[in-house]
């Protein structure tokens, strides 16, 4: 049991890491789409500069989640892939277009019009991907995704789509946009900083509204999440802390403590994902697939954990170096840092 839990927790932590890093990169794309005002160009340039060196590394967290899932909980991976075929495929299209268009925009030497076209594809797919990702995560806990005796998806290929999964899709989109805007306040200067400060506050409000909507809908559409939100022993403390992080992030934005705001926004996002994971426990796919029912044999799990540990030993210092090289200057120059 402990092995299963450890591997499951690792997958959840990798998902948190993806939300905080890759999610924020997608959020950057959203701000590219929503760039406006006199500093439109500067906003886009800052986004590009901020995510350019790191988005590919950040993206690998998602691949890690997938590999841990199919090694540690293979039947769950099969069931999820089958019942969520449509949104996963759309997510893939979004991921491919986002990454390719971002790179082409940076390197295509075909002129301004070409650049603008790539920018549009990049930013549109940066919205599409988190919508799908959020909807997928919401659908996992909705209880609507079930397999028939031959492993076929019951309820058709659109069973994942509901008001609840739509709300979680919006929640992920708003949350990623919020994270990106908050991170960018640390990297921006002058007027540009004000732009992203305003955007961060707006996205924070949108995140709150989407979260409230999803929570309300969960009462009807996702009883397990609702129970996790309200009825478990850890529910109240968790929400208290999440709420404190959210309020604290707002306060820090208003009072221009941007490094603190970044920390609190990241904490808030972390707690939201962990809270979802905790209310979903012990299910991987509600109501038929649990950690225990889908777990690979203990030997595989133990080796996988060992491999993940070894991998982390090389990964963590490398990531530290990457962020030190590309994110250090901004931090040192920040008066509150």
């Amino acid at each position, binding site marked *: 049991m402990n092995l299963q839990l450890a591997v499951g927790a690792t997958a959840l932590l990798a998902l948190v890491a993806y939300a905080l890093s890759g999610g924020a990169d997608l959020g950057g794309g959203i701000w590219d789409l929503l760039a406006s005002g006199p500093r439109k160009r500067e906003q886009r340039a800052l986004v590009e500069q901020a995510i350019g060196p790191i988005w590919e590394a950040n993206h690998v967290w998602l691949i890690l989640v997938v590999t841990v899932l199919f090694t540690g909980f293979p039947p769950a991976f099969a069931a999820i892939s089958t019942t969520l075929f449509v949104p996963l495929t759309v997510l893939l299209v979004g991921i491919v277009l986002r990454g390719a268009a971002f790179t*082409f925009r940076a390197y295509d030497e075909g002129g301004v019009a070409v650049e603008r076209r790539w920018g549009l594809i990049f930013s549109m797919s940066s919205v599409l991907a988190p919508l799908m990702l959020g909807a997928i995560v919401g659908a996992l806990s909705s209880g609507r995704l079930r397999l028939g005796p031959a492993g076929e998806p019951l309820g058709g290929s659109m069973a994942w789509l509901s008001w609840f999964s739509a709300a979680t899709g919006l929640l992920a989109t708003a949350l990623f946009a919020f994270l990106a805007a908050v991170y960018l306040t640390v990297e921006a200067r002058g007027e540009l900083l004000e732009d992203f400060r305003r955007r961060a506050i707006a996205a924070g409000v949108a995140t709150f509204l989407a979260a409230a909507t999803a929570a309300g809908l969960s009462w009807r559409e996702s009883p397990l999440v609702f129970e996790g939100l309200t009825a478990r022993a850890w529910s109240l403390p968790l929400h208290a802390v999440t709420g404190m992080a959210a309020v604290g992030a707002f306060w820090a934005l208003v009072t221009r403590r941007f490094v603190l705001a970044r920390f609190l926004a990241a904490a808030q996002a972390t707690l939201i994902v962990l809270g979802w994971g905790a209310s979903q426990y012990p299910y991987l796919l509600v109501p038929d697939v649990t950690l225990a029912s889908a777990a690979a044999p203990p030997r595989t799990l133990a080796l996988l954990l060992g491999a993940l540990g070894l991998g982390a030993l090389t990964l963590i210092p490398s990531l530290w170096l990457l962020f030190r090289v590309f994110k250090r200057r901004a931090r040192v120059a920040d008066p509150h840092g």
Partner: protein
Amino acid sequence: MTHLLAARWLFGMSLAFHIVFAAIGVAMPLLMVIAELRWRRTGEPAALELSRRWAKGVAVLFAVGAVSGTVISFELGLLWPRFMAFAGPIIGMPFSLEGFAFFAEAIFLGIFLYGRDRVSPRLHLASGILVAVAGAASAFFVTLANAWMNHPAGFQLLAGQAGEIDPVAAMFPAGWGEQVLHVLISSYAATAFAVAGIHAFHLRRTPGDPFHRTALATVLPVAMAAALLQPISGDLSARRIAVTQPVKLAALEGHFKTQRRAPLRVGGFPDVATGTTPGAIELPAGLSLLAFHDPDAEVRGLEDFPRERWPDPLKVHLAFEVMVALGSGLAALSLTAGVLWWRRRSLPTQPALLRALTWAAPAGFLALEAGWLVTEWGRQPFVVWGVLRTADAVTPVGGLEVPLVTFAVLYVFLALVTATVLRRMIRQTSAAGRSARGWSP
């Protein structure tokens, strides 16, 4: 189109696309590092420019490879959920390890590409080297998974379920070494010949251009070494397959009848109905020699195996012949270039050689694709040889035509755009190089 065929087309298309960028991701960082080292050793400005320009190309190609690789990791579940449910606990670990290798590749590529002015020269170079090492490690881990599919190990089959799973034994099935070696060398050969072809083409148009000369002088040795080593690795692979996957060997050689002094068939079209390979040139005892290094060795033919375990020998044999022909051609070209180089004691730039190199640019990748088809078609009708049939692994989700068409359009689009972006980059290189250096002959 049947459901199974749609799934195979979609997955095959995704891999055929990704494999090009994966190979480039393995080999291009090595070339980049060699150029960087060359600059540090000689101080030639052309070498520095080369390292920078190649790095820009790598940035584009790596990004396309990263996203197309993501497609593969998801499609494993989307298209073959029963394969993953079966194989995940046995062979999932190399994929997770590959994830970390990919992490390292992405991280240090970010530092190498964007950090030239932000980190010390030593760290910059080290990052490049780590990218090259991590790229090779990715290929290593992924090929291990494929080697297991060809020769499954590390579990016991009990009533259709895998029991007594030993993921470590599964990671290193018989033949893993030969296959990894073959895949790695093919990545270096394919990429290096493609790069050499591009620079040879430009060198013909602007003879003596220092940038393209330096580029060709840097890449050609890698291409030559890989192309000359690959036949040796191919021989190792064939001898291994003769023992571990005799049906595949029989299919790829168009060999139906079990016999001693088995001939090697060059060309020809295996015909399942008659059990012969008409149109082939037969070299007496050639196959026995190649497969067992013994002219009297017995080579098992397809007839030795139940019909329902045969791959399609026509497809496998043709793909194999294409691979061998292209590989031999590249080896011959390398030998010629080597002799010319040695006789001149400097980079050979005879127009005929440059023309041959230009024409050879796509040959390595075509050979690589053909070789991949040999191993995949040659394993059919199984996805895990002898254990799980491809038809039993496919998803029950219908309507695969929609993603098939979507991704077909997407890949064609990406291929065209990538080619356009690279062409524009190379053209800029030529223009910028000439004006910036203002070279006087």
